[in-house]
């Protein structure tokens, strides 16, 4: 029997009992649909994270926080007047403990750390343009970690952390509000920032707009360089209180060619930090947390899809066993006419593969259709704040992989019935009444 004849017969046989085949295909459809969506979700999120990391991370900084104390067995910790202070406010970036100047010194002393800058949270009350017709004041939040990464720029340049003058990077939606023509127009303009000092006095300062950035998962709010942060933080520091920091940024020196920071460098500094009871995180690590959570959700959804596929595979076995039963005589006849056991096996297992292909291809197509619709609705609505995020990314290769995997499952389900058909003795089949 020719290969093309095996394929056409298998396809025709699959449709001989239309209702039965349709039901089996439907159960595969559910699995394929879900699996295609979950892989697309995974691909969408990890694509976004990868792009963000690529565009935002300078790769040579570590965000250092005090190691979270998890030790609950030894009772209350003894007071140490030179020890770390406890924060009075919850800080999402670090634990409740704050770092002191000793900690900064020990970070700076670590091999592979170039310099260390504490991140000082500042609060700005408003921003206004100094040189356009609009003088409305807008609220502005400054991203405390703006110094560790690069911004995803629409226009302009990154902050110069070592510059003397005060610099800011504005979020994209302030361009219109502050009366600039476009993002490019905002670059180089001066803005006025209003904030309250430690003594509740109202103060203002000026800064230059060096860049306009897109909002991202990692950083929302405006970016301020070290000069501006120091100025405001100094004014907001409560006099007489010792310096304490929730977060510090360690700038690393690289051992790689051209002074690039290698993974080993980062790992080495992390170990040294851990010894000093501190924890270091890269931008990737921070985004990795988000990715881990999403991967967990995707994993659960995929597990459901796989359960559906396992159920479907029993459906295939059942369908084909019935098909073998019904076609006992036909099998016997073909064998009497000289068809080999291998071809009979091929005929039935291919029938399973055809069913698998139908279910998976239809499921994947439906998933792409529905998913693209969801994706564009989500991008316009709830996810509008995260430009660059395609919630569901249908990569042709992974869609093909899902289809291939389901066809493989179908083939494996077909093995038992197909073997039964192949082993049938022609005489027994022809005696069948």
């Amino acid at each position: 029997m020719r290969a093309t004849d095996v394929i056409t017969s298998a396809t025709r046989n699959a449709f001989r009992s239309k209702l039965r085949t349709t039901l089996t295909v439907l159960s595969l459809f559910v699995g394929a649909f879900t699996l295609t969506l979950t892989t697309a979700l995974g691909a969408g999120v990890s694509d976004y994270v990868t792009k963000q990391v690529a565009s935002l991370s300078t790769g040579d900084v570590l965000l250092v926080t005090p190691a979270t104390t998890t030790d609950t067995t030894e009772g209350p910790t003894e007071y140490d007047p030179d020890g770390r202070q406890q924060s009075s406010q919850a800080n999402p970036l670090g634990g409740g403990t704050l770092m002191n100047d000793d900690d900064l010194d020990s970070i700076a002393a670590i091999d592979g750390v170039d310099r260390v800058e504490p991140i000082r949270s500042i609060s700005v009350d408003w921003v206004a343009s100094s040189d356009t017709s609009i003088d409305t004041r807008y609220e502005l939040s400054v991203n405390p970690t703006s110094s560790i990464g690069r911004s995803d720029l629409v226009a302009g340049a990154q902050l110069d952390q070592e510059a003397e003058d005060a610099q800011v990077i504005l979020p994209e939606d302030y361009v219109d509000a502050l009366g600039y023509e476009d993002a490019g127009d905002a670059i180089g303009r001066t803005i006025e920032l209003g904030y309250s000092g430690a003594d509740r006095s109202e103060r203002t300062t000026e800064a230059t707009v060096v860049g306009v950035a897109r909002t991202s998962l990692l950083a929302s709010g405006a970016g301020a360089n070290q000069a501006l942060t120091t100025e405001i933080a100094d004014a907001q520091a409560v006099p007489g209180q010792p310096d304490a920091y929730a977060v510090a940024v360690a700038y690393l020196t690289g051992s790689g060619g051209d002074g690039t920071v290698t993974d080993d460098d980062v790992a080495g500094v992390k170990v040294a930090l851990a010894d000093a009871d501190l924890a270091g995180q890269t931008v990737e690590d921070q985004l990795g947390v988000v990715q881990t959570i999403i991967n967990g959700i995707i994993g659960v959804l995929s597990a459901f899809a796989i359960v559906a596929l396992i159920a479907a595979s029993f459906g295939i076995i059942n369908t084909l066993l019935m098909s073998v039963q019904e076609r006992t005589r036909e099998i016997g006849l073909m064998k009497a006419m000289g068809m080999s056991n291998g071809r009979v096996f091929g005929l039935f297992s291919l029938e399973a593969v055809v069913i698998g292909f139908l279910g998976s291809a239809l499921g994947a197509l439906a998933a792409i259709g529905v998913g693209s619709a969801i994706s564009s609705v989500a991008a316009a609505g709830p996810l509008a704040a995260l430009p660059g995020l395609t919630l569901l990314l249908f990569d042709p290769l992974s869609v093909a992989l899902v289809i291939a995997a389901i066809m493989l499952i179908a083939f494996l389900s077909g093995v038992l019935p197909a073997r039964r058909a192949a082993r049938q003795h022609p005489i027994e089949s022809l005696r069948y009444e």
Partner: protein
Amino acid sequence: MTNPPAPPVLRAVDLTRSYGKGQARFDALRGVSLEIRRGESLAIVGKSGSGKSTLMHLLALLDRPDSGRVEIDGQDVGAASAPAVNRLRNERFGFVFQQFFLTAGQTVLENVSLPLVVAGVAPRERRRRALATLDALGLADKAGNKANDLSGGQKQRVVIARALVNEPDLIFADEPTGNLDTATGHQVEDLLFGLQRERGITLVVVTHDEELAARCDRRITIADGLIVGESDAAASVISEGAGR
């Protein structure tokens, strides 16, 4: 016989075949030897359950004997590989069974093409040969009909067309008229014997129909798995004539 006998196309030597094991063991054939000459028609007759079908299945290489051997053109096929036996059946044998075994949903043409599909003949060639065979059996106009829509006699003619389409030199027919009324049965018999004579096909017919057996060149009678009688049709006519 004045001429030296032609080499037998099929020879069976001391065939035995039993079904089941232990207490349930049943010896369906208990040592059967026979020779079938090229171009002759042989009837295997006997009561129901005597072992006729079992013998035919062994001769047609659809089954293997417990002991004894089957030779085709003097070659022992017991040692042949499964693919070789499959090829032999596909290329040289044609089958007509008691039941039609037509695939109901397929057309007459598709049913008749089956041995060619198994053989791996190209679709165009398949169609040409199947149509030619149907034409020879007066079924050309039914080629596109569903097998299910035919009468019993037409169905059996389709079955014969299917047995002929690969141009076999041996046709095995197990109770070919068992399912047909007398008139249709006669038509089918005429067809089979006509083909046997025209094309020089060797015909092995299993039957318990006395009339059908009488039309064959030779008959062997089986009872309880053993050959109990062997006779030429001509001889039996003579002996009947002499007895009258």
